[in-house]
């Protein structure tokens, strides 16, 4: 009974060694390429600007959620203050456009670079902390940035309470500001960014560094004794998460052309955190599914006026009922069904 799955598993691992590497990757890569290409045509199928706008919001939220999920899965560190990274990226972009007068493209590159550097610096300081103090530290960072933005002396730069409304010159990947504001023309940018980020997080997770990171998460002391550097990989993971979060922040800046202190609020980081948990941190697609559900839920519950109440109930229910998130639940159910099928087949083979 128990021999059949292990045999199947051995056969599964043995197969790649026999077949050449490239053709094995060919099929999944082709499927992914087709999905990415098909995704570009969503605006021509979905005509409603409202629902398309909702999807764009889900994508932006989903990218922030991927950042949280990536770090939580690879390092076991939960970023409570993800708003610090998404929000600071939006502000960096806003300041580059309004104060320095840079064009959209230059400002975007500057934003990604500066935000990544910033997260590398912060990561170097905070990844030594244990998970709970780490969560507090990132939360405190977001709160600190929010307070800094609101300080009256910095008002000329940050806009204070009013935030910064942007009018940027030049184009971003051939799109002008008014085109970026429309969901239909902004769609390709958001969609490709999402695909890129998902592929990046997936590839890093599957790489050797990903395995080292998860081993450190499981037992840091043992990894150190085995001769691995346990500090640098975590800083790199944090930096990558910060980079992904800054992509979300940059997209917010490009799409809404507005930076408000609300972006640095705990609630904003909370949205992404809730999405991550609802979707599940075990996979790259989980947080995105969570973000989609979250945005749909927000739209549905928003009309009732009890948005936060229902969000709270949703968080509690999902964490209690689905410890691995919705994606983890789906994954487990599929695996269980497939496992039953495989076992039946294996049993049949054994009988022959």
């Amino acid at each position, binding site marked *: 009974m128990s021999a059949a799955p292990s045999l199947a598993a051995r056969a599964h691992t043995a197969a790649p060694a026999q077949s050449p590497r490239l053709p094995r990757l060919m099929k999944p890569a082709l499927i992914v390429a087709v999905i990415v290409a098909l995704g570009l045509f969503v605006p021509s199928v979905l005509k409603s600007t409202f629902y398309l706008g909702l999807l764009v919001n889900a994508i932006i939220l989903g990218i922030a959620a991927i950042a949280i999920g990536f770090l939580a899965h690879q390092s076991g560190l939960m970023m409570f203050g993800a708003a610090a990274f998404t929000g600071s990226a939006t502000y960096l972009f806003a300041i580059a456009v309004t104060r320095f007068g840079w064009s959209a493209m230059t400002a975007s590159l500057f934003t990604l670079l500066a935000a990544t550097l910033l997260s590398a610096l912060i990561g170097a300081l905070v990844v*030594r902390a244990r998970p709970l103090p780490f969560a507090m530290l990132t939360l405190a960072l977001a709160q600190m940035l929010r307070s800094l933005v609101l300080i009256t002396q910095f008002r000329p730069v940050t806009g204070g309470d009013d935030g910064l409304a942007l009018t940027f010159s030049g184009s971003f990947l051939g799109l002008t500001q008014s085109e970026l504001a429309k969901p239909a023309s902004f769609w390709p940018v958001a969609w490709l960014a999402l695909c890129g980020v998902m592929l990046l997080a997936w590839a890093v997770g599957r790489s050797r560094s990903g395995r080292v990171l998860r081993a450190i998460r499981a037992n840091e002391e043992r990894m150190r004794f085995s001769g691995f550097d346990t500090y640098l990989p975590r800083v790199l993971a944090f930096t990558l998460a910060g980079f992904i979060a800054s992509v979300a922040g940059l997209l917010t800046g490009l799409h809404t052309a507005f930076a408000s202190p609300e972006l640095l609020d705990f609630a904003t980081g909370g949205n992404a955190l809730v999405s991550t948990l609802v979707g599940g941190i075990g996979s790259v697609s989980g947080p995105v599914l969570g973000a989609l559900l979250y945005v749909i839920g927000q739209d549905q519950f928003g009309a009732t006026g009890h948005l936060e109440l229902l969000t709270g109930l949703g968080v509690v229910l999902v964490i209690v009922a689905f410890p691995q998130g919705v994606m983890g639940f789906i994954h487990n159910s599929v695996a269980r069904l497939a496992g039953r099928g495989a076992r039946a087949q294996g049993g049949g083979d054994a009988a022959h």
Partner: protein
Amino acid sequence: MDLSQIFNVAQLANALALASLLTILASGLALIFGLRDVMNFGHGALFMLGAYLGYTLAGQMNFWAALVIVPFLLALVGVVFEYAAIRPLQRRSHMDVALVTFGLALIMSQVVIMIWGTSPKSMEAPPSLAGSFNLFGQPYPAYRIFLIAVGFGTCVALAAWLKYTRSGMHVRAVSQQPMVARMMGVNTDRLSLLVVCLGTGFAGLAGVLAGPYLSVDPGMGASILISCLIVVVIGGLGSIGGAIAAAVVYALIQVIGTVLSPTLAVISPYLLLFIVLLWRPQGLGRGRVG
């Protein structure tokens, strides 16, 4: 600006008033964390609930009745919290439980808004404490003196309970070595019920006390929660003595910062958190690392 403006008796008393409020809240938070490893993100919402209940009861009866009844009501909430949330989830990761309390906080604050509305309420100090008090030659609001007295009185009572009673000793034992304490026959579940009730009751007490001192509004829970979390983390997770020391340091920095420069006052708590955690990851006290 000369130094007497910064370090005078009134400023010190202001700092102590803020510190006493923070110690009551933070010691409750630290107690629950020490025993159950639960970082209660709902503590701010409990504090807010306490303040609103205090507002209603003080209006219908008087302030003193509210000061006695509200902590008991909040302790009842603590019983529900222990049986419905903490006990069923005690095998789950700390982060999961922390997030459940975060969800419960969202629910609780919305329930408060549904009952009392979003407009801020003002609560008067009781007539016997409404005037001012002569503090080393300077008039100072009597209510704040009372707040300091209650805050530090509570801390002394808590410290005495922890040090001189059997149940207090068990709480200390579980906070330091949960496994060993359990092996020596300490009933963690029964102790946890007591400690969670005490923690939520303290949140209620702090809420009533805060009524005449701060304004009673729906944002009060979230803003004080962050301060409390900073205090608990700086003090060393689960350490009561550390939490008290950290609350005083935090309040002093906050008050002195406000006089010196508003910019400094805004960012100094976070800088303090960063510096303490990087210098001493376990915090100031002798707590466990979370």
